[in-house]
């Protein structure tokens, strides 16, 4: 069983059987028979006589999928991963939180220091890419426990910026 999330919608999918290139798949209780073959970087699906070409880029459990110019950012969790996520959620956001970059860029300014108190939504770091500035905000009220970057540093995507407790 997989938990597949597109936007804020989650679907449960089970792969029931495979015979050659044909898969029987159950999606939210509905059955699909999918003929699924691959070329170098893309896949061809035939479902009930309808043909689809899909492209995919995979990073961890993140699947970016394109179908005819439509783009679907998807996250896929196994049952075990899903359970882990739920138990984490129960614990709530009381613990320290590490904020990461969403895009690569250059640190334009670090507005807070280690030990500073911050309010939720307050700017901690300003990041610039492609002539546009983005303010990175604190996700909660608390204290800055760690700042991992400094002025003028170039950062990649998903790099740690700061920790707030």
């Amino acid at each position, binding site marked *: 069983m997989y938990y597949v999330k597109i936007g804020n919608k989650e679907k449960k999918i089970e792969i029931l059987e495979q015979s*050659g290139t044909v898969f029987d798949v159950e999606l939210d209780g509905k059955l699909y028979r999918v003929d699924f073959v691959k070329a170098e970087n893309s896949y061809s699906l035939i479902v009930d006589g309808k043909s689809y070409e899909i492209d*995919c880029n995979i990073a961890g459990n993140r699947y970016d999928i394109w179908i005819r110019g439509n783009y679907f950012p998807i996250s896929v969790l196994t049952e075990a991963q899903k359970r882990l996520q739920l138990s984490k959620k129960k614990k709530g956001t009381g613990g320290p939180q590490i904020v990461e970059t969403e895009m690569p*860029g250059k640190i334009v300014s670090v507005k807070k220091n280690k030990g500073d108190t911050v309010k939720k939504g307050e700017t901690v770091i300003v990041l610039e890419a*492609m*002539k546009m500035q983005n303010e990175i905000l604190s996700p909660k009220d608390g204290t800055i426990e760690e700042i991992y970057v400094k002025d003028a540093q170039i950062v990649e995507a998903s790099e740690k910026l700061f920790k707030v407790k």
Partner: protein
Amino acid sequence: MKIKKILIANRSEIAIRIARACREMGIKTVAVYSEIDRNSLHVRYMDEAYFIGASPASESYLRIDKIIKLAKKSGADAIHPGYGFLAENPEFVEECDKNGIIFIGPSRDSMYLLGNKTRARARMKAAGVPIVAGTIEPIKDYELLENEAEKIGYPIMLKAAAGGGGKGIRMVKSQAELKSAFDIATSEAKAAFGDDAVYIEKAIINPRHVEVQIARDNYGNVLWFPERECSIQRRHQKVLEESPSVAIDDNLRKRIGEAAAKAAEAAGYNSVGTVEFLLDEERNFYFLEVNTRLQVEHPVTEMVTGIDLVKLQIEIADNKAIELNQDDIKIQAHAIECRIYAEDPEKNFMPSPGKVVGLRTPGGIGVRNDNGVYEGAIIPLFYDPIIGKLITWGSDREQAIERMKRALSEYLIKGIKTTISFHQKVLNDKDFIEGNISTGFVNRLLETKAEPDRFYYDIAAISAAILSEFNRSRIAIGNTQSGISNWKSLAMKMGLR
């Protein structure tokens, strides 16, 4: 032809666009590149290439001294600035002049005149080109501003005299808002342009942004081209353009075109350029500004007229007289351009630099793809987010739209976020299809959440699940129906493939 070699002081798609014209004309090309651009497409495309400095533009593409030095070293007769970077910097033109290098663009004086909003407004008013009602002289004194605003009537636009790029612009709805808007606008203008003078214009409600391509040579011959409609904008920057505009008929086209030609004459302009106008709901047009460069969206004009504007620009710089007559410029149907930005339209157009890990480009009838990337290319975070432009031509607007939707559906860029899916939304919007657009269109569209095809959703979800199963090596995926032998399937499972 005096010009035999051109240094192109730019990068990405526009550098390649210019180099393509040069290659067709038998002119040699010289590329310059920053550290991160060593492996960029423009470097690979041109005849010569020279390193100019570290990745930030201020240390490379904006370095007038280094660019002039390299032009001389490589023996280039002329420099083409493209758009952005040094394209509208009169100081750069001056340096070219001093060093005996032809600048492919207007004269320094014409560029200087048009670079300042209030100077340009005064000149246009004197020449009889309609301008938006408002002040002519720059204002620094608040009381004077308050009196003028009262005379013009609210709402008004407060703008920086030295402005550009949407900076220092504020709409003021009533006198109560004026003082704080004045304080902010003057400090912004001071910070951005080193000049705190402002001026005011009557605000035009739901305007369309319409512009006219012009060309004028050193002998005073002038041409105007059918207008481009550029109302689809985000952050005061265009994302989709088309020609002609649905709001303009033949009569208005001629009037607005002749006004643009008059503007070019009044400024002593001597290159290709663009005169921007606002069009109000009663179809009155008002001069906004002149872009003294080749525009990003010039291809739509090329597609509807069949004229190579870069070639024309180079010939004018080479001191040739324009051979075409105004009667030679005819609209052939309709063209649309979609700007492909490395941005995430789902996240307020946040920049998305990175590596292009997969690229499939559209083709077929009526499709032109001006792009600056290849599979494996790095989109650096230092420069403008534009990575390409997709242009379609159709025998009418409807066909151009359908063709663009088709071309976008073929276009695939993996590894970074792009505006491709956003353009699909625009082209499927009822107001857009009916031509009912103004500069507020994008904000309105972003508020309406369109649901993509529900069945695609399911297909995408199923694909992700199957690929996930494959990644865990629990299944094999073959490449033909006839099959996977047991041996192959075992190998796949063990990751030996």
